[in-house]
């Protein structure tokens, strides 16, 4: 299967300042990849490099197997919002702005324009000039413009910034549905709690580097059982054919199942072996806590290295 997005050792320097440092990641069709990190971490630059708006100092980018700089027509399959808030001609209405985008994109029907306006809750505001749109409305129109061509790749830079909770939910729902229909989605965001609910992977960036990648989809399949003896429970479960992976965390045994209906077997096998099961449920991943922990660890590593050099 052709990867929808692939970056290999992607770097960008402005003079001596390294803004993006050797970033590599892959996004398959149907996946949602979220880039998170503090302001100035390099997320926006990565997005501009991937969309072909900026040129890498070194490394490679490919969209659906093609370099967007060498083959700009690959953008026929790309929908993107790279400005936060999304930028439009203020003297045109929302609908006129989309019509202009449709002309540039080609093969977009009037029905599709109405569909995306309705999808983003902008039908009533479509005849209003975008100059008077609120921040959230412009962001929603940006997502509508990105969705115009039913893209195979969606790339969005902070698509939900400045939005009210309902609009925020709407945007994330639209992105989730696009991924379910097979589009690859790359987005940068600060909304960790929203994206963790549906994204496939999270890339954590700091100071231009991709310091960690978290496979959220795999973590979503994990279960956690609080038991009287975690190590013994791990040994028992390791030999069972309905268990794919098993490990421990404190008093908990963490495992993935070969079949979701096998959860009741876990309780059965543990209790028959004399292990008390005190609690059982999905191993909910706390991305926010993980993110904070990862950033502080990274900072400590950096200061240690600086001290060693000194």
């Amino acid at each position, binding site marked *: 299967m052709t990867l929808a997005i692939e970056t290999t050792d992607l770097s960008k320097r402005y003079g001596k300042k390294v803004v993006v440092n050797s970033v590599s990641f892959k996004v398959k069709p149907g996946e949602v990849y979220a880039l998170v990190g503090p302001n100035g971490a390099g997320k926006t630059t990565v997005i501009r490099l991937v969309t072909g*708006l900026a*040129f890498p100092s070194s490394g490679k980018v490919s969209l659906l197997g093609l370099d967007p700089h060498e083959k*700009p027509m690959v953008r026929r399959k790309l929908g993107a919002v*790279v400005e936060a808030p999304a930028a*439009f001609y203020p003297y045109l209405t929302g609908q006129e702005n989309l019509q202009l985008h449709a002309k540039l994109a080609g093969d977009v029907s009037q029905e599709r324009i109405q569909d995306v306006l309705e999808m983003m809750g902008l039908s009533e505001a479509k005849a209003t000039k975008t100059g008077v749109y609120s921040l959230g409305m412009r962001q929603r129109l940006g997502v509508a*413009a990105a969705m115009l061509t039913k893209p195979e790749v969606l790339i969005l830079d902070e698509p939900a910034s400045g939005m009210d909770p309902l609009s925020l939910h709407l945007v994330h729902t639209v992105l989730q549905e696009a991924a379910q229909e097979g589009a690859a989605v790359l987005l940068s965001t600060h909304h960790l709690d929203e994206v963790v609910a549906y994204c496939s992977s999270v890339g954590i960036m700091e100071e231009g580097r991709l310091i960690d990648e978290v496979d959220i989809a795999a973590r979503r399949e994990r279960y956690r059982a609080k038991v009287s003896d975690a190590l013994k429970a791990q040994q028992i479960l390791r030999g069972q054919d309905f268990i794919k992976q098993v490990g421990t965390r404190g008093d908990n045994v963490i495992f993935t199942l070969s079949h979701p209906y096998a959860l009741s077997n876990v309780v059965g096998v543990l209790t028959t072996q004399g292990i008390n099961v005190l609690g059982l449920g999905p191993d909910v991943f706390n991305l926010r806590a993980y993110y904070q922990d990862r950033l502080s660890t990274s900072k400590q590593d950096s200061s240690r290295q600086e001290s060693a050099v000194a």
Partner: protein
Amino acid sequence: MLKLSSIEFSKLFHLISLRFSLIALILFPLLWAYAPGIFTVYGFFIVSGYQVPALSLLSSMEFLLPLIVAVASAELLGLELSHGTLPTILLRPVTRSQWLLAKILVAMLYPFALLAFLFLISLAAGVFYGYGAFAGGTGVGMGGLLGQGTLSAGAALVELGRAYIMAALSLVPISLLAILFTVIFMNAAGGALATLAVLISMKLLIVFPSLEPYLLTSQLNAYVSPIGNLNITVALIALYAAIFAACSVILFERKDF
């Protein structure tokens, strides 16, 4: 390309500078046509409606028209930067050079549209003096405003038409220079100011007589030049325009957004 150019041409009507330019170009011929002190200052009377377009051209080509053209062309690109729409457009399946060439085409047509407007307004402003044959000259033909005997209406129109077309043509490189500087500075004000700075500096270079015929600013007088010199003038204008357009496209292709 045609689709792109039509989209870009429609944006022309939203330029802020265009509104001010049109007001200036409406007022200018009216002021010249009915200025009470014109004889005292310049020593002649307007005797024909055909002299008003010539006077408008003679007075505005010195500074006003180059300024208007430079500002509008810089704004044509600068507007995309100030609205933040440039990256959004470049994400559509059009190449950077296609898009910039569409802008360049509009910038090239702009001086012609502007001068056509000035010509019509000036002609209308001279209605009081009539449009028949007259003793004198249009101001842009042989003998200047005094002329060489009687000039027919047809001959006057031909002289004016040729002068206006040459004037528009000589403004094209200025328009493209403004595009080039806007690409370099990624800012409309910077683009317009740099263009004006170059024009003013070039005007000072007339102290080098061997350079003078080849200067961009010297071509601005092409509309009153003898017909025999036109081929060289047109070739120089085309060369300047081609260099500015090519440099703009090359630089734009490698810009980060």
